[in-house]
């Protein structure tokens, strides 16, 4: 069997080099060998006709929760992998919110070993603080030396400023990336939705946007005093966008992400106490949603994540304020993000950059680009096909999507990792 594969008749999209042209792409032994308008394939090469569809680098999702270890009833590694490839995602960054918590090298290795069963790349993000307690730092140095790219306390903030300052100083010695969940606990812990008129009407306690913006401003102040590599995991509001724009203008070394629901839904998605749309941070007002889109457009936000967080229906079929937070999103990340293109908000390459070359650059990965020598992680998608999101067609074990029934446009038709087509859409 030949180790050459030619993808022909494709709209090649490489956000990193701004390439957008009809052409062909040749891979060899799992790496990209040649990119061009007209490639003569070596004899015996497998030829895949892309039928004019888009071909871009496989997506990189910087925020995914898994059920392994501790909760395989939510999602197994294999399930997460299946969900990812359905959405064109070939690399997932795993949050340490597991049982036990991933907070040392042994557990990182455990997860990496288990992840070998999956068809895609799993990058564990171990905890910043032991047991996510926000008290003592984990072995950031040892883990960095062993190849760990980034640290995060997942859905918890490093709330103590003295500790955060030490974390930033310490992590900078190893060039380690600190990924922060932005929420002042005292302002957010009792809340279960966006603070505002809707919360008042529904009789639910609110989380003000200040909970996020105050933490962001604090961390930017710390970064100015102690430069380090820092990524704000999820931005959800106008005020935070304004703060980010100013920080980037001041050349603060900061990057930021947004989860798909925060630019595609607003707080009204939880009206009628829909627990499937309960998130942390919560869905915000329509003004904030539009501001986040503006932030994606003007570059304040670098990365789009799915925030994929499988939750057992048992934890969602309860009164709203008792429900767990989190939605699944791997399968729908690309389709829903493409609404930004179809609605004329953001050019196609700019959207794709936030799921390919931008996270790759932040994490120091070789994937995320269509470049000779780069891994042949590829996502081939039909940009225009309309369809309705249906949780029954998803691979995730839990079906806690807030997008059930949403009409959308654009679907992944083939996902490739190296030499292997790991997903192919069949009607």
């Amino acid at each position: 069997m030949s180790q050459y594969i030619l993808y022909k008749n494709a709209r090649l999209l490489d956000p990193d080099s701004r390439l957008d042209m009809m052409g062909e792409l040749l891979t060899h032994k799992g790496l990209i060998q040649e990119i061009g308008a007209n490639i003569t394939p070596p004899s015996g090469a497998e030829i895949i006709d892309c039928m004019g569809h888009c071909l871009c680098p496989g997506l990189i999702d910087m925020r995914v929760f898994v059920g392994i270890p501790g909760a395989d009833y939510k999602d197994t590694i294999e399930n997460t992998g299946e969900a990812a490839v359905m959405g064109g995602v070939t690399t997932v960054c795993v949050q340490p919110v597991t049982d036990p918590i991933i907070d040392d090298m042994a557990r990182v290795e455990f997860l990496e070993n288990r992840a070998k069963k999956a068809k895609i790349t799993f990058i564990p993000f171990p905890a910043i603080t032991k047991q996510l307690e926000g008290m003592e730092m984990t072995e950031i140095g040892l883990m960095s030396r062993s190849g760990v790219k980034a640290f995060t306390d997942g859905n918890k903030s490093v709330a103590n400023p003295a500790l955060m300052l030490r974390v930033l100083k310490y992590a900078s010695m190893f060039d380690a990336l600190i990924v922060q969940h932005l929420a002042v606990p005292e302002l957010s812990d009792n809340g279960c939705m966006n603070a505002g008129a809707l919360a008042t009407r529904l009789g639910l306690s609110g989380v003000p946007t200040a909970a996020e913006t105050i933490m962001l401003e604090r961390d930017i102040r710390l970064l100015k005093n102690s430069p380090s590599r820092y990524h704000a995991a999820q931005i959800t509001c106008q005020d935070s966008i304004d703060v980010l724009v100013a920080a980037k203008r001041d050349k603060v070394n900061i990057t930021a992400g947004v989860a798909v629901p925060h630019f595609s839904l607003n707080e009204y998605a939880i009206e009628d106490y829909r627990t499937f749309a309960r998130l942390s941070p919560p869905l915000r007002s329509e003004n904030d949603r539009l501001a986040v889109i503006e932030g994606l457009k003007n570059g304040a936000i670098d990365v789009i994540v799915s925030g994929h967080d499988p939750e057992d229906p048992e934890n969602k079929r309860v009164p709203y304020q008792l429900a767990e937070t989190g939605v699944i999103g791997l399968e729908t990340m690309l389709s829903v993000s493409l609404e930004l293109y179809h609605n004329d908000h953001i050019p196609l390459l700019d959207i794709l950059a936030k799921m390919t070359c931008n996270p790759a650059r932040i994490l120091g990965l070789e994937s995320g680009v269509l470049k000779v020598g780069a891994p042949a992680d590829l996502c081939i998608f039909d940009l225009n096909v309309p369809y309705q999101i249906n949780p029954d067609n998803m691979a995730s074990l839990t079906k806690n999507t807030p997008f059930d029934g949403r009409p959308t446009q654009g679907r992944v038709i083939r996902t490739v990792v190296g030499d292997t087509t790991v997903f192919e859409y069949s009607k």
Partner: protein
Amino acid sequence: MSKAENTANLIFPHQHLLGIEGLKEQDINCILDLADKYAEQNKKTNKKSDILTGMTQINLFYENSTRTRMSFELAGKRLGADVINMTSSGSSIKKGETLLDTASTLNAMRPDLLVVRHDCSGAVKLLSRKVNCAVLNAGDGTHEHPTQALLDALTIRRRKGKIARLTVAICGDILHSRVARSNIHLLNIMGARVRVIGPSTLVPANVKELGVEVFYDMKEGLKDCDVVMMLRLQTERMHGGYFPTISEYFTLYGLDYEKLSVAKDDAMIMHPGPMNRGVEIDAAVADDLIRSAIQEQVEMGVAVRMACLDLLTREKRDSGK
């Protein structure tokens, strides 16, 4: 009897009573008209009727309650229903059964009416989707308490002869009050002018969007009011300080004759109970036989709940199932 015959034509086109929001003026009038009839029936020596004979009413209370539970129990019994009370302590709820499992279990026993109180906003609506019978919200978290608003409306209507165009001030802990929310909705639907008064920590600024005027000063807010509704300070729902001391709160927001003097001379005083004397209301004002309608509210509570139980079972009774 002529009034009773008239009520036979009342139409209440709802399966459940989950909240005031979403009801129409004619729905509310329908309940109040029927409740008027029951208020008269309740004054007789024989208070019983048999319209709910053979029907089962379950009162499912996840939160402590005295007057609301008693009131629903009396209402059901006076209409001839078999009434069962279930509270969270000493039941399978304590053993960790989920709300929806409890709902399915109770539903399997084929009740005709479920009266539910829960400490989570939206919980009663969630439960209503899993059962076949009529569900009445007896208070869900800080969301709604529809029968309280209805009994308040009945009390006002009987005293003032109308609700429309009255100026009603709701005072105190608006933030944590389901009574306030239901009353704001109801009074707006009925065309009253609604004010809320309280400290800014307990009166969310955005409550304006529910259609009220917001005041932070009692005397400004009470000026020329027809009705003054006091709310209980819900310290059990407060995490952290919302005001410095009870003494300061009473001085600024407790209802006494001095603050009341700016309201209309015939302004009526209401309180959903239980009252904290010396916290939100001065004892002398609470006991004012002429102006205080607090005892009447309790009395109207039974009548309003009888009307609700009656209306929500009508279709079933008429179809003879």
